[in-house]
Every structure is written in structure tokens, then in C-alpha cells.
């Protein structure tokens, strides 16, 4: 139908457009409601999932713990089983490593630790020694005079006695021995040689124990794990050798603790102890 009246036609158009607008508004409203609902449900789902994941996480942690317990049990059980039928490796008695060898190693370590004195210090010490010697000679002279003084020369007696007593409070400083440096060098090289020799012996026995599948002592397994970690056998052997050497050098005999009590004072022993602790922890983890 065609309207001739333009105003009417325009009115109709406006009416139509209004209707359209209303329907569009309705649709937008509907869409909004739908979206809100959907969002709500998604949030709920996510919350659910999160809760589930947390639960699973706890469960996994529990499982990991029990696996760890089982692992330890297994290790202990393994040990028990092997203990009953396997020969034990002996890393505690070392007749082939003599006391003199250990003494040489310790002397070498001491030589490394010793402070070498500077030329100035040596000079000062020499000066102090010369001074002491002069004082000693003066005191001896004074005492010499005491042997001939007549008894009533009191002032002289007092003077000489005082001179004699001057030496009593003094101490002769240790001489800065000229050949101390050479001696230290000799001790160092002897110590290095001795360490090399001892390491060889120890390593041979550990390798033998590994080769024959012997049961390691408790302290050894406690410190270094039941076996060398894959791919790191050589490092492991080196550390194991050092652990045994540490026990030998520092007379650690504890059957459970490989390194014994931690040393308090700084020095070579402390360094070695700390290094071994760190390395062994790595091997146990691997």
C-alpha cells in the first residue's frame, strides 16, 4: 500500500523503525542474560576444576612422600638382604697405609697452612734476637761480676743484680730459619706424593669393592649413596677416596657418621670437610 500523504508515510516509517528498535533492544537484553548465565557457569566450572587440581596436588604430595618412604625402606631392605649373603667391603682398616705416610701428608698440609714470613718480619725478628743476645751477654757479665764483688759493696750488688734480672722477663724470639722455606717446600712435595700414594691404594680398594659388588660399610653408603650416580663414576670415586682419606687422616672411627664431628677451627681439615659434605649431598641427590 502506497501512502500519498508524506507525513503519514513518514509516521509509518518511524513506527516501523520503533518496532525494529524495540525488537533489537529485546534481543540485546536476551543476549546479555545469556552471557551472564554462561559466565556464571564457566566460573563455577573453573572453581570446580581448581578445587579438583588442589586435591590432586595434595594427593600427589602424599604419594611422593610415601614413595620416598618406600625408597628408603627399599634401600634399607636391599642392604639387609645383601648383608645376609654378600661379603662386606672393609674401608676401615688400612694396614698398607702406614702411619708415616699419614704423618707425611699431615706435615705437608701443615706446611701449606704455615704462613711464610716476609723479609721485613724476618729482619725484625733477627733484630729482636740480636737484642736479646746482647741483653743475655750483659746479664752474664753482670752475674760474672757478682761472683767477685766484696760483700759490703751494696750499691754495686744492687746494680749488677738488676742487670741480671733484666734478662728474666725477656724471651728469645724464634729464629726465622733461612732453610724454613726449603723445608716447607720439601714437606709439601713429600705430602703431595704421600697423598697420591694413599689415594691410589684407597681407590684401588674401592674399585675392587665395586667390581666384586661387595657391601659398603654403613657410613660409606650413608655418605655416598648405594652406588655411583650414572655418568659420574669417576667424580664419585674421587670423592669416596677423599672421604676414606679424611677418616684415616683425622682418625674418624664412627661406624655411622662418615666424617665424624665437624671441625671447629678454620684450616685444611675444615675446608675438606665442607667440600666433602657438599659433594656427597650432590651424589646422594643424583
Amino acid at each position: 500500500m502506497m501512502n500519498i500523504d508524506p507525513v503519514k508515510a513518514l509516521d509509518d516509517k518511524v513506527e516501523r523503525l520503533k518496532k525494529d528498535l524495540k525488537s533489537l533492544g529485546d534481543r540485546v537484553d536476551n543476549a546479555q542474560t545469556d552471557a551472564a548465565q554462561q559466565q556464571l557457569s564457566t566460573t563455577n566450572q573453573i572453581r570446580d576444576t581448581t578445587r579438583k587440581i588442589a586435591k590432586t596436588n595434595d594427593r600427589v604430595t602424599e604419594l611422593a612422600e610415601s614413595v620416598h618412604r618406600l625408597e628408603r625402606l627399599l634401600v634399607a631392605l636391599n642392604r639387609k638382604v645383601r648383608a645376609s649373603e654378600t661379603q662386606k667391603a672393609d674401608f676401615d682398616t688400612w694396614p698398607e697405609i702406614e702411619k708415616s705416610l699419614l704423618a707425611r701428608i699431615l706435615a705437608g698440609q701443615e706446611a701449606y697452612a704455615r704462613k711464610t714470613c716476609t723479609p721485613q718480619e724476618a729482619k725484625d725478628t733477627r733484630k729482636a734476637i740480636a737484642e736479646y743476645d746482647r741483653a743475655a751477654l750483659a746479664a752474664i757479665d753482670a752475674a760474672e761480676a757478682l761472683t767477685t764483688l766484696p760483700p759490703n759493696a751494696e750499691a754495686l750488688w744492687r746494680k749488677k743484680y738488676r742487670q741480671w734480672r733484666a734478662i728474666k722477663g725477656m724471651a728469645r724470639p724464634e729464629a726465622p730459619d733461612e732453610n724454613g722455606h726449603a723445608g716447607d717446600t720439601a714437606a709439601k712435595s713429600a705430602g703431595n706424593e704421600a697423598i697420591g700414594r694413599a689415594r691410589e691404594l684407597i681407590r684401588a680398594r674401592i674399585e675392587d669393592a665395586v667390581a666384586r659388588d661387595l657391601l659398603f660399610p654403613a657410613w660409606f653408603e650413608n655418605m655416598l649413596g648405594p652406588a655411583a650416580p650414572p655418568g659420574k663414576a669417576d667424580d664419585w670415586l674421587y670423592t669416596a677416596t677423599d672421604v676414606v682419606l679424611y677418616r684415616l687422616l683425622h682418625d674418624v672411627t664412627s661406624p655411622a657418621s662418615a666424617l665424624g664431628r665437624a671441625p671447629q677451627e678454620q684450616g685444611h681439615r675444615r675446608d675438606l670437610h665442607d667440600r666433602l659434605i657438599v659433594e656427597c649431598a650432590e651424589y646422594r641427590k643424583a
Partner: protein
Amino acid sequence: MAAEPFARLADRQHALRTALRALQAAGPGSPDFTALLAETDKEVEAVLRARRDVEAARLTVPNRAIAAATAVAALVVVIGWFDGWSLLSVLLAVAVAAAVLVDPVGRRIWEPRARTAAIAAALLAVLLTPLANGWAALAVPAGVAWWAWRTLR
């Protein structure tokens, strides 16, 4: 009897000489020097003790005599020049005299002669009392201080 302390002193001096020979032979650098030094020190102490004994033997009688003279002089001064103020120095001097009469030579190595000085100062104080009254008392502490300085140091 009188020769005995002398003989002992000579003896000790001889022993000291021997010890010193050993010390000199060892020299300050040798390892047993400290031990020898301690030994020689003992010998030196012994020599000084012996010398003190000689001194003691020599000074016992003079010290006692001066102490007795001090006591007598004190009596004379108190009676002849009586004065309350002088009493101070006289009493102090008498106290010192009593101490020296009881033990004329003391025990420490420098003590015999120090006691002689102290008692001489006390006698001086008594003799000065008529002139200086109480001021003479200053001589007594001076003598005692001398004794302490020589003996206890």
C-alpha cells in the same frame, strides 16, 4: 763462726761461676739456654742470699747497738726535754727501735743495711728532738720509707 757466712758466700760465688761457664758455653741460641738460665738464676739468688747472710752477720750487733742507743736517748730526751709535741718523734723512734731490737737484720736480701738506715734515722730523730721538737719526727718516716724502698722493691 764469723767466718762461716763468708765461706758460704765464696762457695756460692764459686757455684755461680760454674753455672755461668755452662751458660756461656751454651750461648743464647742453644735450645737448653732457657733451662740453664733458670738454673743460673737460682745460683744468683743463692749468692745474694749468702751475701745477705754475710751482711746480717756483720750488721746484727751494730743495728742492735744503735737501737739500744736510740731507746736510751729517747728516755733521756723524754726526761730532760719533756714536751708534749716532742713526744711524737720520741714514740715513733722508740717503736722503730723496738722493731730493730727484736729483729735487727730482717729477712729479705737488701734488708740488713736498710734496717741500719732506718734505725740510724730514728736515732737522728731522737737527737734532733731537743732542737726541733715534733718536727724531728719527720726523720723517722723518712728512714722507714728508705727501708721500704730498699727492701720491698
